[in-house]
């Protein structure tokens, strides 16, 4: 084909099974988040965790399990049921030296806090010329695929990604869940941390003590603003993040059986966006499909398509396509499988990448 195909950068591909750790154990995504919170609270007395049901219950998904018992109710506590209150109080606590981590319980429950997030959390550092920094982490159990009833499965990333001043992260692996939450808590900037609910029970063989040591020693590669090649390939690139990454990887595996080598990019960080890794991949492969669960109209997926075509136009052998949710409110549990990007839908999009037109 036309453009040169560079080999994938060494050391960033093939995460599955990579990095042999001393005592690997099956660890869930949820457990990794819990460990990241506990380790961050252990490392820095300014880190606090609060929200609805995060105390003795340990959160509805048990992400804060045991934190109150271990750190006391001044460090991990339940608030009245009021999301704007949680968010606004976090602003004041951050202004006064704390590093609040708040849980919004469910994606669509975070909307009452939206004014606080967009008008204050995002803007305060800028409006004060950096005098006031707000090192807040807003944890949002996010997106669908768990059979949840309405208002429990929204993909809200575009609202936050559209708001300058916010860092927006969505991990897809157990290892990233740990490192990215630690990195988010350490960030001096406010971070919207989107936790794909359907991945909470996914497992990887990792040793949490080893992850802790790696992070504390500063040896973990930075993840904010850095996408990663989750699976190397040469024929087309699937660009994805958060809950859609496993689906994209499954599609790439299926495509391999049909003889197509598909690269999968896991963005990890939606804002800042890693143009470099994404565009390097698309320039290698010449074809791209963006896979995301949110409705496609005016979405993060739309933004990625625009960026790729602006930067990689002369490398493209086909239009950049999207596989997203439909432009409808998130459907009921028995209908959600019609809505979510599926392996088949992704493979259909890959098939549509004008292969026959290729000279």
């Amino acid at each position, binding site marked *: 084909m036309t453009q040169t195909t560079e080999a994938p950068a060494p050391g960033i591909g093939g995460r599955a099974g990579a990095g042999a750790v001393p005592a690997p154990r099956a660890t869930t995504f949820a457990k990794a988040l819990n460990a990241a919170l506990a380790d961050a609270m252990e490392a820095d007395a300014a880190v606090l965790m609060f929200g609805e049901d995060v105390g003795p219950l340990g959160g509805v998904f048990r992400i804060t399990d045991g934190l109150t018992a271990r750190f006391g109710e*001044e460090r991990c506590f339940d608030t009245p049921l009021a999301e704007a*209150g949680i968010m*606004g109080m976090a602003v*004041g606590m951050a*202004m*006064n030296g704390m590093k609040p981590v708040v849980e919004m319980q469910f994606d669509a429950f975070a909307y009452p806090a939206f004014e606080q997030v967009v008008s204050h959390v995002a*803007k305060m550092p800028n409006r*004060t010329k950096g005098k006031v920094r707000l090192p807040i982490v807003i944890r949002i159990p996010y997106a669908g695929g768990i059979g949840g009833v309405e208002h429990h499965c929204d993909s809200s990333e575009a609202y936050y990604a559209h708001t300058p001043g916010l860092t927006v992260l969505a991990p897809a692996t157990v290892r990233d869940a740990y490192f990215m939450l630690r990195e988010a808590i350490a960030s001096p*900037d406010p971070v919207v941390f989107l936790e794909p609910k359907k991945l909470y029970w996914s497992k990887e063989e990792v040793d949490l003590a080893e992850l802790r040591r790696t992070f504390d020693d500063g040896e973990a590669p930075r993840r904010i603003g850095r996408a990663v090649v989750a699976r190397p390939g040469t024929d087309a690139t699937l660009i994805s993040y958060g809950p859609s990454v496993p689906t994209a990887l499954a599609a790439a595996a299926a495509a391999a059986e049909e003889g197509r080598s598909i690269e999968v990019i896991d963005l990890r960080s939606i804002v800042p966006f890693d143009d470099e890794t994404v565009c390097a991949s698309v320039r290698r492969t010449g074809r791209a499909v963006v896979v995301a669960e949110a409705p496609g109209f005016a979405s993060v997926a739309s933004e990625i398509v625009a960026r790729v075509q602006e930067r990689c136009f002369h490398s493209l052998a086909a239009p950049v396509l999207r596989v997203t949710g439909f432009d409808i409110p998130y459907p009921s549990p028995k209908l959600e499988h019609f809505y979510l990007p599926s392996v088949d839908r992704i493979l259909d999009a890959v098939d549509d990448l004008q292969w026959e037109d290729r000279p």
Partner: protein
Amino acid sequence: MGGAPGGTPSTAAHALLPSVDPVQLVDPDGHASHDERYPLPDGRRLLDAYGRLVAGRRINDQANALVRQGRLAVYPSSHGQEACQVAAAVVLGEEDWLFPTYRDTVAVITRGVDPLEVLTLLRGDWHAGYDPYEHRVATQATPLATQLLHAVGVAHAAKLRGESTVVLAMCGDGATSEGDFHEALNFAAVFHVPVVFFIQNNEFAISVPLKNQTVAPSLAHKAIGYGMPGERVDGNDLAALLAVLGAAVDRARDGGGPSLVEAHTYRMQAHTNADDATRYRSADDVERWVPKDPIVRMRAYLRGLDLLTDEGERILADEADVVAAAIRAGLNTEVDVNPQELFEYVYTEKTSQLREQAALLREELERDADAAAAGTGGSMEGDQR
């Protein structure tokens, strides 16, 4: 006050209710009255606060004039409310925090922030012109009631660290209808943090009168629903404001938790220069408040005690003129704005996207500068292409 239809409130609940009439220690004619709960502040303290009142009025007048001259984009005047402004600032200690709204410029200046830095927001060179940590004054809040929650957070953090900080958070009557107002009061009460919520009830939210805002007996009555005491005070009585707010601050500092103070005052001028107040209230309505002016009243009281003389008044007026002159001179000087700063403070470290955009703007500016340096030739050349 009439008992609730459902039965007689318990003594404890009763203690949370405000006084039947707003607390008043000096009447509009300048005569002191006795209130066993709130001792009259001593004369020296009142004289000092009176000087700040005079300066506050002068700042309001000067800022209004600068709007007319196009030097300020807008100015929400606190004319008539200066007693609230001064009291809110002077009842706080150095370790305390003040959370003001956009109308509370005089309170912020009284707290010690440089007037020119305070007016940055309204002048238009940046959103917040002062360092909130320098005098422990939060940025002036434009969205209503959101800052009350920030105040709760600052107080909660201070409490966790065992500091004696008290936070005084200001809002207007309109803000009491916002959800954040209620969440802030509830959070403050549940976490028992040292916050004094201070409502300046000036009877209008832009054009909407208080009766369209609430049918509660008073805004101070809202406190009981959250389990904190509420109090009403004559918002044009500097002495009563100092006494009531001072007591609320002391109570918070002593571990008594939050409280709510409602000052009954009046917005003598329009919401801002963009507002036409004649559409929603008559000149007669406004005139009725003229005799209640906080400055006239305190002057009469202090003169009655011989604490204020002609000479003293002249000195205070001169001092106010100095402040006004500094504001005038500062705002008549053009400020250099640096367009590259647009990208500086969005994130601690600029994203690659912001670096690209900053470079784009820099190129545009350099091109413009080159064209300007080349004189008309630059644009001619452009036209020929």
